[in-house]
């Protein structure tokens, strides 16, 4: 590791390597609250109900399963997604919430996913499951990280899990034993080695998406709400998800702009 990184960055990187994720308190709580208010606003519009007061957001989101039926969940989710993704301000706030950690772990010239994702996991809903997977196995680049933002407290089955890096090495070398099996078989095998993310609203999770992760049926009495979005160093390799169609440049620096637009003078007539 480069010794030019400062102590704080080195420690953060060490933790990231070791655990495969980091959780930190959000320094820009105001931006985070703006994100949550935008979601609640869009949700209320979608449900055709009066906008809630901020002090009631937590209860409202946690108990939303009392007014949303599972069969209507995807329509609600899509309405919210279209609303938040049509707002460049929402994307900017999302970045601002995670900026310090991204600059430490990824770099300061970044590409951001063009669409922020939203997960809503109602209690006992089996239709919103994300079976165990590594994002790299489905076309993402290993140079990306996921910024995962809970809008409510997430714990036990109302959260996501991630395989510990120390256990991934073995899985990687023995992967051929899963030939002909399915992702449930795979999960059964790794279940004892995954870490269940315990995170509160006001905190942010950045994780290594190359490590197998997923969720299970939420058997808690509350609904899980979380946002996720990928970031990568702008000039690092892209997988199937390319610049323009999946990622957008968000922090191009002056020297790069000069370089990209430079051409040597031409001596030929």
């Amino acid at each position, binding site marked *: 590791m480069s010794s030019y990184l400062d102590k704080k960055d080195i420690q953060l990187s060490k933790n990231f390597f070791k655990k495969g994720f980091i959780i930190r308190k959000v320094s820009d709580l105001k931006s985070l609250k703006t994100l949550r208010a935008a979601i609640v606003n869009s949700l209320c519009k979608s449900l055709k109900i009066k906008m809630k007061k901020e002090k009631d957001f937590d209860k409202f989101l946690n108990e939303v399963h009392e007014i949303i039926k599972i069969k209507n969940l995807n329509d609600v989710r899509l309405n919210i997604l279209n609303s938040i993704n049509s707002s460049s301000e929402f994307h900017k706030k999302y970045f601002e919430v995670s900026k310090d950690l991204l600059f430490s772990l990824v770099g300061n010239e970044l*590409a951001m996913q*063009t669409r922020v994702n939203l997960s809503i996991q109602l209690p006992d809903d089996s239709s919103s499951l994300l079976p165990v997977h590594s994002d790299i196995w489905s076309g993402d*680049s*290993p*140079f990306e990280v996921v910024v995962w933002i809970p809008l409510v407290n997430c714990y036990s089955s109302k959260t996501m899990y991630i395989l510990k890096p120390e256990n991934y090495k073995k899985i990687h070398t023995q992967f051929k034993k899963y030939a002909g099996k399915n992702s449930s078989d795979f999960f059964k095998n790794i279940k004892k080695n995954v870490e269940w993310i315990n995170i509160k609203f006001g905190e942010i999770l950045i994780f290594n998406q190359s490590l197998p992760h997923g969720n299970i049926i939420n058997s808690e009495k509350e609904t899980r709400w979380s946002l996720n979005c990928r970031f990568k160093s*702008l*000039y*690092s*390799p*892209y*997988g199937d998800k390319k*610049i*323009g*169609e999946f990622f*957008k*440049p968000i922090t*191009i620096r002056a020297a790069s*702009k000069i*370089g*990209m*637009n430079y051409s040597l003078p031409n001596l030929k007539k």
Partner: protein
Amino acid sequence: MGERVPQHIQNQIIRKFCEINNLEYSLSASEYAMKDSYLMLEEIINEKSNLDGIVFYSLFQLPENKIYRNNIYKNIIKRKKKIFFSVENYKLSKKNDILELEEIWDVKSILPNCYKGF
């Protein structure tokens, strides 16, 4: 930029894009296959028709030459038309939109010179 998607698939994507964005799809045009040909594009931009704009399959179907590309943007804006890019979901209708599109072009153009391995 080395991208190729069959024409009928491109048309399906463009039609869907128009549907989602409430745009009236009036006609389909295909560029000549010769390298660096933009004859059809020039024809559509410059004709005095009732077309409000052009929907491209992708941003990267524009000319690779930056000066030529910028002239196209300016011509579109001058004629009060719009251009849309289905895959990237971008729109150009005013001068400020150019910067965002060109940043993507700039990054895409230098990526072949960046580290590629994984």
